[in-house]
């Protein structure tokens, strides 16, 4: 090592040169815009794909999409869904979910239930602020899930499209599970897309 280089090294060591180097970087950042944002005054922009609270959806005419097939229950890796299905008392021969529970305390937000649903009745929304003082309110029942679905219907539709569950908004109107009529009396007209 040359004398010059050695001197430089000694000087650097004495003057804590590496500290100055680092301070340079730090000081440069004083002129940057801060990257932190002030939650909850500022909110993150949530992407359409975001897997937030689950919601049950209705068709445009207000009918429940869910037919109570229990496949979400089977698909759920944390076993947090419970569907009680039954024959719809108002619409004979039609299956529906008389009760539907999602235990949000157990839910892992994997989105498998949405993927499994054969009628796209479930969707995830951008809702993530549902913390509460009472753990019991985190057992989402059918009413609550439909409420979320009504309120965040746009999120839900965007989610389904973003996750390749639906092609476009038009398609979502078409699925309609067709139940057979009773031999005793007509219970519903055959759907258009089937006739």
């Amino acid at each position, binding site marked *: 090592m040359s004398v010059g280089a050695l001197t430089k090294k000694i000087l650097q060591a004495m003057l804590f040169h590496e500290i100055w180097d680092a301070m340079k970087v730090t000081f440069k950042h004083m002129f940057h815009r801060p990257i932190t944002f002030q939650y909850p005054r500022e909110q993150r922009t949530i992407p359409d794909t975001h897997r937030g609270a689950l919601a049950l959806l209705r068709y445009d005419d207000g009918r429940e999409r869910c037919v109570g097939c229990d496949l979400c229950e089977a698909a759920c890796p944390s076993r947090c869904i419970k569907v009680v299905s039954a024959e719809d008392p108002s619409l004979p021969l039609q299956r529906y979910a008389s009760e539907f529970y999602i235990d949000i305390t157990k839910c892992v937000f994997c989105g498998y239930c949405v993927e499994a649903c*054969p009628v796209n009745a479930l969707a995830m929304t951008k809702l993530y602020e549902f913390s509460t003082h009472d753990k019991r309110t985190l057992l989402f029942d059918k009413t609550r899930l439909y409420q979320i679905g009504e309120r965040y219907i746009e999120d839900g539709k965007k989610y389904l499209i973003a996750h390749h569950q639906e092609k476009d908004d038009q398609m979502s109107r078409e699925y309609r599970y067709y139940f057979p009529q009773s031999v005793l009396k007509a219970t519903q007209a055959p759907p258009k897309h089937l006739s």
Partner: protein
Amino acid sequence: MKLEDQRTTVYKVDPEHPESATLPTLRTEELLLNMGPQHPSTHGVLKVVLELEGERLVKSTPVMGFLHRGVEKLAEDGTYHQFIPHTDRLDYVCAMYNNFAYCRAVEKLMNVTVPERAEYLRTIVAEVQRIIGHQFWLGTQALDIGAMTVFFYTFRDREILLDWFDELCGARLTTSWYRIGGVERDFTPSLLSKLRAFLDYFPPKIDEYVVFLEKNRIWLARTKGVAVISAEDAVNFGLSGPTLRGSGVDYDLRKYEAYGAYPKCEFSVPVGKNGDTYDRYWIRVQEMYESVKIIRQCLEQMPAEGSIMADVPSVTLPPKERVFTNLDSMIQQFKLFSQGFDAPPGEIYCGTEAHKGELGFYIVSTGGGKPYRLKIRAPSFIHMGAFDFMSRGYMIADAVTIFGTYDIVMGECDR
């Protein structure tokens, strides 16, 4: 003499001065110190029982299992597909790697070939995850040792990638994006442009991290020559990943097993010389540069169009829009979700090079939709085996450095 004084005063027994015999004798036994399970630098809930001789570590015994959730047992209860979200929670810092390693193992079991485009997507995301993992390690290791600043910088950049994950799959940490036979969702143009922008943005930032540490004498003093392990010992202890390569063993599954799109990319595997913490730090920094390189190459080579899921009707899910209108797809959907696919009897092991080391899944199948037994070879767990060996003789303050040097995450270690 009062009792309080006895506790605080140190007496020396001098045989040449008989009067000292009247004084109490000095106890010289090793001190047992429990470090953890609640300790900020144990990265989870790890307890280490340290035997100290003065400030020197004589023996250290990791006590594990505080974060044990029985994940391997859970795997036996669900279908193969259902286990993917559980793997998110192994190494919760880098969920994508766990997904990747698990899916690869099941694909090996089912003999499923992943389409080319999906292979590229998987490789890109795996490398993004590697960057996140190394950023995380760098920030927290520096923080553990006492350098606070780096933590802010690495976490700032990590945040960009986590948001990118959110847009990719809907979650920042618990991703579940990989699927058996492909991936869940393709890149969108927005994701691609964001990733490209990041690739331009990121390498200068690595230089910045380095400025803080590379010449910092405290950093050097705390890392150089700490937690040294020879190449032979490292191999014998089964270490892998940067922990192994730091000791000068050139072993990287990405090269040797050549899975994903790695064989089509050019990249080098940095290897250390001294086997100390500093070398491992250096390797991880270099790997970040290499990852950027790999991602760039993948983005160039990736076919613009193509399937992202293998088309094996007995294993992979049908396209959703067909489920609504076609009976065959609906049956496929119902069979796969309610019963899973029928795996052939047999057993397989498949290791994947995660940023920590070799993450392996060993699956025993007796046929049917559920694994008979699933064993996870978690690098953190294997590395903890060498902890006692690597920490002997070091100061108590180095204990934090030493388990930091493995990049340990207890979620994976205790499973």
